[in-house]
């Protein structure tokens, strides 16, 4: 079996409860961001989405206001079981993390000074960085089927990286403007394909 499912190999959750437990499990694994874990669990382990569908869902989540992974949970849950599925997925994503972070806030003063705690956080942070990089590398492959072709895709990706990582512009400006550029170019590419 290949690591990422083809559309024929996709499965479905059995119930909103399965959505709740799956999203709880992936939220609890997400130190320093849930996204990389979400890709791993939803695409490669649960097989509820193809890689392409994951990128598509995340792209839409990113254009909308709100936490991206929460929007992603909501949309995926809603696809399977309507608003009950959306609520189950979002509830799973948020409930345990909220309980834990408030407990940490209450207990913070007692353990903040310890070197072991700082070291453990540093180790987990490095793994979080590795997870993010590995996911980005995997998802580059999804761009192969993009109607804009490899050159334009690479151009948009490099432009985004330059604006965000080098110039450090706020995402509030980058996402709508690069998004509009991408949308326009993709629109033209699709129209050209339809004519030929």
């Amino acid at each position, binding site marked *: 079996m290949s690591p990422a499912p083809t559309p024929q190999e996709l499965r479905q959750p059995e119930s909103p409860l399965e959505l709740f437990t799956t999203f709880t499990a992936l*939220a*609890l*694994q997400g*130190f*320093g*961001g849930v996204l*990389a874990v979400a890709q*791993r*669990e939803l695409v*490669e382990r649960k097989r509820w989405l193809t890689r392409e569908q994951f*990128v*598509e869902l995340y*792209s*839409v*989540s990113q*254009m*909308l*206001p*709100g*936490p991206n992974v929460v929007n992603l949970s*909501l*949309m995926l849950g809603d*696809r399977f079981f309507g608003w009950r599925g*959306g609520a189950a997925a979002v509830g799973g*994503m*948020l409930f345990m993390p*909220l309980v*834990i*972070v408030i407990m940490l*806030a209450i207990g913070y003063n007692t353990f903040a000074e310890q070197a*072991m705690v700082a*070291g*453990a956080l540093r*180790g*987990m942070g*490095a*793994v*979080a*960085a*590795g*997870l*993010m*990089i*590995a*996911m*980005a*590398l995997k*998802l580059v492959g999804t*761009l192969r089927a*993009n109607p*804009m072709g490899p050159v334009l895709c690479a151009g*948009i*990706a490099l432009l*985004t990286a330059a604006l*965000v990582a080098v110039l450090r512009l*706020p995402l509030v400006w980058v996402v*709508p403007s690069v*998004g509009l550029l991408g*949308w326009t170019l*993709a629109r033209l590419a699709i129209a050209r394909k339809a004519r030929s």
Partner: protein
Amino acid sequence: MSGAEFLLADLPEFFGRFLLLSLLSIGGAMSTAPEMHRYLVGERGWLDDGQFTTAVALAQASPGPNVIFVPVLGFQVAGWIGALAATVGILAPSTLLSLGVSRWAGKRRDTPGVRAFTAGLAPMTVSLMACAGWVLALPYLREPDHRLGGLALIALTVLVMHYTRLAPIWLILAGGIVGAVGWI
């Protein structure tokens, strides 16, 4: 709680601010952090700088989405009721809007406009993920004491993710242990 006192009469305005911020939080709740800082620390004086930064750090050290720094801010300002108001405020408007847009676009997913939307955004999305990985890796590049161990752990994680189907939690636990015993 330091600084100015939070009164129950402040609650509706506090809640309203978070409702508004929710609609502005394109790119995630963290993109509204500067605005929250301006309101909670600068304008009202309910928190000091240290408390604000601690809330963000605690959220990053906890499992789950980054947005959980918002309930911690609410908790520091006004206890449980503050945590509840901030959480519902930051999530309700964006969640309802997303649900509506998702259903609307789902029905039109094969139209050129919607297809161009998802295809046009994909390269930016993948690039933003790579940038996030870069930003998370930066502290290890900058600190000479932890550079070698940190980079080795990052590289090892990438390799394990590429060649195995191991669940990420085992890597995170291993990273925590390696860090706690002082190897990186």
